[in-house]
């Protein structure tokens, strides 16, 4: 890969002098993009952190109202898709065209399963009026148990136990964040799946080899990042307080 001159690889763009320069530029570019993504989600996580500190009771109650099973299945599915993605990168590194394509398809399938389950979960939220907005309604069946717990005292004179009005307002904040966070995550998945389709097509056409597979590698980095976001979202949204 380094140093020794090859005849021009067909994928070498004119403004790069070597394939390895091109690859390193591409991979660094993807990492800088992920740097941006980390800060993008970082803004959401700080918002979540603040309101969870302020309205712990509501967050616990709202989180408890979410079914844990679909979330757990999705965790398994998404980490599984990360594995298949990693394996397709490995296959492209080692010149196995068929395996590259197959692992990519597996990744697409798992990603779609994740989104399918997400659709089911969203539909469930709509049904229970857990979508923030004018029709939002959080029945306080969990509220009574939650009331036993102390909310983190954020401001002096802050009410420790929430009345139904406040519970309604503050669980709406939880669900607002739930939808913004999982919605943006799902949007990233959709973009990822579109990219995966393109990459799969290119791999199928035999565009990649052990010397030129940066697009597969970069797609992989993106996909793993999306996986990491979910790794944090899962406990933060589904597991705020499950004991008692």
């Amino acid at each position: 890969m380094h140093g020794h001159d090859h005849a021009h690889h067909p994928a070498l763009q004119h403004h790069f002098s070597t394939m390895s320069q091109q690859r390193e530029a591409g991979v660094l570019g993807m990492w800088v993009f992920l740097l941006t993504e980390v800060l993008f989600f970082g803004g959401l996580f700080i918002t979540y952190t603040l309101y969870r500190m302020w309205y712990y009771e509501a967050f616990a109650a709202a989180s408890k109202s979410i079914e844990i099973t679909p979330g757990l299945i999705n965790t398994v599915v998404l980490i599984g898709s990360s594995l298949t993605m990693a394996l397709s990168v490995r296959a492209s590194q080692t010149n196995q065209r068929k395996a590259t394509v197959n692992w990519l398809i597996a990744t697409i399938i798992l990603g779609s399963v994740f989104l399918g389950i997400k659709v089911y979960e969203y539909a469930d939220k709509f049904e229970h009026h857990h979508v923030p907005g004018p029709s939002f309604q959080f029945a306080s069946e969990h509220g009574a148990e939650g009331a036993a717990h102390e909310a983190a005292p954020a401001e002096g004179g802050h009410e420790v136990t929430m009345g139904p009005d406040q519970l309604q307002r503050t669980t709406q904040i939880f669900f607002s964040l739930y939808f913004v966070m999982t919605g943006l995550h799902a949007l990233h998945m959709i973009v990822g799946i579109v990219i995966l389709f393109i990459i799969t097509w290119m791999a199928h056409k035999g565009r990649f080899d052990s010397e030129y597979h940066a697009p597969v590698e970069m797609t992989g980095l993106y996909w793993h990042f999306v996986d990491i976001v979910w790794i944090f979202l899962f406990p933060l949204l589904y597991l705020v307080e499950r004991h008692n």
Partner: protein
Amino acid sequence: METPVYPAHNYLSNGHGLKSWLLTKDHKRIAILYLISISAFFFLGGLFAVGIRLELTTPQGDLFQPDTYNKFFTLHGVIMVFFFLIPSVPAVLGNFLIPPMIGAKDLAFPRINLLSWYIYVIGGIFTLFAIVAGGVDTGWTFYTPYSSASSSTNVAATALGVFIAGFSSILTGLNFIVTIHRMRAPGLHWFKLPLFVWAHYATSLIQVLGTPVVAITIVMVFAERAFGFGIFDPQRGGDPVLFQHLFWFYSHPAVYIMILPALGVISEIVSTFSRKRIFGYSFVAFSSLAIAVFGFIVWAHHMFVAGITVYAAMVFSFLSFSVAIPSAVKVFNWSATLHRGSLSFEAPMLYVYGFFGLFLIGGLTGLFLATLGTDIHLHDTYFVVAHFHYIMVGGAIMGYLGGIHFWWPKMIGRMYSEFWSRISAILVFVGFNLTFFPQFVLGYMGMPRRYHMYPDEFQVLNVLSSGGAAVLGLGYLLPVIYLVYSIKYGEVAGNNPWGASGLEWRTQSPPLTENFLEVPTDIPEAYEYTPKVIREAKLV
């Protein structure tokens, strides 16, 4: 000296017609596309400023309705900040110059570069739509809950425009970072890079680190406004101060997106005209990075009276002073470079002298505002308005115009009118001070910002300010005329009209599409102005 010949083959002659421009991947042509579009936005933003200054010539609110006035200052801010200042130097000069400065044929991702311009244009269209549809009145800061729950104007379209334009900025920054890391000519190590490139590296870091935070903040405002989510609106249990934290986490460093590239321009011009290496090169280089990092830890000095705790305010006040250190390092090192250098008075240099004066005043008044006690008096007065115009207009635009005048012969291959360029530099300096210095006094006397009427005793200073704005406007219009004129009728500039040492001056003007016929090999030290180099450079 032989008369230079205008090169027959160059990036401008390589392809004609609109399509060859709109589908170009050449960083130089993309820079020209940016130059045209940001200039258009600059004059649009300027029009709103004209409206503001006209209204403020009289104490009564007699020209506009208060609501209209609110829209005017909002649109002036939104357009100038997001559609002119943030792209200005990087998207035009950085785009054009970074590849030739590092001996590369293009940026690392030419297609992404073009994409960033299209994204910018789409963002701009959203904002223009908002203007046509009746404007927006939240102020450029989009403070919640007014923006997310109360205002009945086109907040969503404007916010979306800003959100989209942000991605253009991110992509430009990403492209620069990768280019500077991966595309340097062999032998061009970091400490041989022009300080312009260092400054752009630091700027790019801010762009990729800060912009996403404001992007997600806008998404949340949008969700609250469009879908009735509850996030920042206190009636729904949200915290508007959190919005301000997130907004300023980006928007304070954004000031350095505007000023850092201008500082890089100043370094180039100063060393070229004083024929000396920049004094303390590495200090100036690292001061750019320091400004980028410090820029991220001081944001809440915009929020001293917004309801943050005094403890946080004290820490932020203290940290804010830290930015003064790398800024001062730069000013001292430029002064040391000029010391016993050969001073000259070409137009780029005039802009530099102007820059020194304005940046100094802008920087020092920043210290007043960073001081907790004085800020409580000065907050939201014209003192703040004057301060940030001294930095963002006095600093950033002086650097931008200086850079345009410095590299115009390289970009176009022809010289502009020496006489008129000096006149316009002087007009800008005089007009600027006349416009904004009175505002320091007004602010100190207690005139609040964002009001369309004021007590009678403030009128003299306001008229002075409006008069200065007229001079300033003339100073901004003149370059358009003589620069455009020079494209056709200017004298042929030659490869290196200023006798500068940078790599970009070794190639022809205007450059070839690929910048260099061969990748440059004997890389000079940065700013190598030995007598031999000067002699040889002058021969070209």
